[in-house]
């Protein structure tokens, strides 16, 4: 007998989180972070079991939730960023994002209702008035130099955008990142988190590195130790793997 599995589809991680909170009937200002994180990860797991592609956005949120969870389990201490003290409660930050998203989701519903109503009104078909538009000076004040400058600016902007996308694409590959971390550990036996990321890491780079470490820890390949709140995470290669060249390290090359 075959049976059908139905998994609700969500517009994104915020939509999924709101659904989970609504299902649990909890207030957005009072997120049970440990429980919700479990539920969230369980949903991602069922997506994987159904062979549904789990979008990068869902993974970013998974990492955020785990980060928030970790922070709330630790005693509160201010984060120092750019020499300034930030004391944002991470759960509060998440609640604000959820509230904001929920407001727009409600507006989307209101728009849908308006469109259902207004979509029923028939308007006059468009008639071409051939003489309706007359261009006296088709280019206005634009000079040939403007075209020249405009073209260069466009090409430059586009080239920059293409470059950003290529860098971005390279960074978000989780299995490559895991391979890189293992490779580095085989050479040096241990390393610290801050050495695995560039000087000015992008959010994606941070998240993927973080997820790669979590996965390596889960597989028992790497041991992660943190000697104090917010101190650098030290990574050690687990003994039984040290020195061995594992065949399933998809990317053990440099």
């Amino acid at each position, binding site marked *: 007998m075959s049976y059908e599995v139905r998994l609700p589809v969500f517009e994104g991680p915020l939509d999924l989180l709101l659904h989970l909170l609504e299902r649990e009937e909890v207030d957005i200002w009072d997120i049970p972070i440990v429980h919700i994180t479990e539920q969230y990860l369980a949903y991602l797991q069922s997506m994987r079991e159904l062979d549904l592609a789990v979008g990068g956005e869902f993974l970013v949120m998974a990492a955020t939730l785990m980060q928030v969870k970790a922070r709330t389990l630790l005693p509160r201490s201010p984060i120092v960023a750019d020499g300034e003290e930030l004391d944002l409660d991470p759960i509060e930050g998440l609640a604000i994002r959820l509230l*904001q998203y929920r407001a727009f989701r409600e*507006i989307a519903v209101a728009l849908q209702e308006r*469109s259902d109503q207004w979509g029923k009104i028939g308007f*006059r078909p468009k008639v071409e008035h051939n003489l309706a538009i007359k261009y006296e000076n088709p280019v206005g004040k634009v000079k040939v130099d403007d075209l020249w400058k405009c073209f260069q600016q466009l090409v430059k902007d586009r080239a920059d955008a293409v470059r950003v996308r290529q860098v971005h694409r390279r960074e978000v590959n989780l299995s490559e990142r895991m391979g890189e971390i293992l490779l580095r550990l085989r050479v040096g036996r241990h390393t610290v988190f801050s050495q695995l990321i560039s000087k000015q890491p992008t959010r994606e780079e941070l998240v993927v590195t973080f997820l790669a470490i979590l996965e390596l820890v889960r597989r028992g390949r790497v041991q992660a130790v943190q000697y104090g709140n917010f101190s650098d995470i030290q990574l050690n290669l687990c003994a039984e793997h040290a020195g061995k060249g594992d065949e399933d390290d998809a990317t053990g090359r440099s």
Partner: protein
Amino acid sequence: MKTMRLEEARAAVEAMLFSSHGPLSAASLAQALQIDVKTVEALLRQLMTKYRNSESGLAVFSVAGGFIMGTKPEYSKYVERLHEPVVRAGLSQAALETLAVIAYRQPCTKADIEMIRGVNVDSAVTSLVDRGLATEVGRKDAPGRPILYGTTEKFLVSFGLNTLDDLPQLPEKTFLQLQEIAPASDD
């Protein structure tokens, strides 16, 4: 004589509304008739009332800061039956949410929308631009000079809005907090 001329003007307004595909402002009607805007506004109100109360299948609507003539919604089924079924594929949830953000945050970039929706919005924005509901309104003075998007007049007409102020209010709380977190995430 005075009355006669007003009736003529009203009929002329009716003819102009009929001939226009999109909404017409009271000012442009006034200019074509060479009478003052106040009078035109009074005539428009009379026309709206006349059509609303009559057994006519037509009506005059106030939308997008102007006035437009259309069929009363209750007759839409006949109009659709006559012309090939208008495949008015509704907007997807993703497109509606994206449109909601553009409407309230315009002008805004794709990155601004993605920050709120938490997902990539490329295809949603493309679909809104293709439908003429959103459009490029400029470029942000920031690295990469990203495109700024805004809503169009067609958006107002499609949703029966006179101005953007007719949109439902965002909850006050969210508004305030948005401003608090916005600068921090701007880099």
